[in-house]
């Protein structure tokens, strides 16, 4: 599975910047999963949990509203608040 760059950004800081193979996004029109080489999409987000996975490791980030920009090699999540769940 091809990996891609995931960044979760708030106005104040970069909450997460890592390479992942899959990420689950709480889109405003429903959750969707992004894998490598995903079609470009710009979507609004509803508050929820982003689940990023890489080599069996998983990272959860709670986010408030914002939006996500998906290009084949990058996923950028721009939100008001993001909280990286430890563990």
């Amino acid at each position, binding site marked *: 599975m091809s990996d891609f760059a995931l960044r979760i950004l708030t106005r104040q800081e970069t909450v997460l910047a890592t390479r992942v193979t899959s990420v689950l996004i709480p889109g405003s029109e429903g959750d969707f999963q992004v894998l490598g080489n995903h079609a*470009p*999409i710009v979507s609004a987000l509803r508050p929820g949990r982003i689940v990023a996975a890489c080599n069996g490791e998983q990272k959860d980030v709670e986010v408030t509203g914002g939006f996500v920009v998906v290009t084949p090699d990058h996923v950028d999540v721009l939100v008001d608040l993001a909280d990286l769940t430890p563990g």
Partner: protein
Amino acid sequence: MQSPREVGRHIRTIREIRHLTRAMKLVAAAKLREAQARVEAARPFARKISEVLLDISSFAGYVHPLMAGRPPRTVGVMVVTSDRGMCGRYNDDIIKAALDLIDRTSGRDAARVIAVGRVGARALRELGIPILEERSLVSKRPTFALARAIAARILKAYDARDVDHVYLVYSRFYSAMEQRPRVFRLIPIAPVGGSRTDRLPAGVCLFEPSAKEVVDHLVTRYVQVEVYRALLEAEAGERGARMTAMSAASDNASEIIERLTLTFHRSRQAQITREIADIVGGAEALAAEQFSGNSVPSTGAESEGA
């Protein structure tokens, strides 16, 4: 010439001033580092918003009113200065840049100022330029809440047609020694983005829920984020300017102390020389007396002793 005592007092005063300016320099340096870190941390978000807007504007098939723009009858200018002085030319440079901009665009009567920082607000009001809104940081760090409030004020003024174009004038931070005023056109929006690999391709891009909603959302964020960035940059610039100013003040104090110390020694030497001259003069007068006989009555004991 001042007496050594007076010069000494003067030196002590200058030393105390140097203590103060040195302390202020250290405080500014510490705050500068924090402010710089905040500027850096806020950059990726601002850059991304700008890039996405730039990409989308070319193919979304929807042009937001703030991007389309309208002829500038009135020009809104957000001017970010400090609340206090003691930071060299920092405020003067910004006020000058703002005035240049106003004179170049709408003229002073058709300008509407949103002043952040007391120094700028006072200076522009004295020049008779209409102030739309005045905010003060009260020397605290800028918050996003403040940026959002200012952004809301700008958008409200735009909707009410109080302003047609909006500029941000603030100090761009390059280094502690160098801050230059930056004039940035906020409205109409013209996002900037460098060359990069994650460009959104035209044609195949999807928007959820719709292009219009995405663009509207982005535009609001963009305005907030640019205002926020201006506040952060200005804060770093102000700290840098204050640090440089206080550093220069400390150097000047050292120079004055050196000069005064020289004066002190000269005046002390002069005093000693004068005293020696008095003593020698006195002694010579006494000696002359003895050789010239009893021109001045003297006691018998003294003559016998000599």
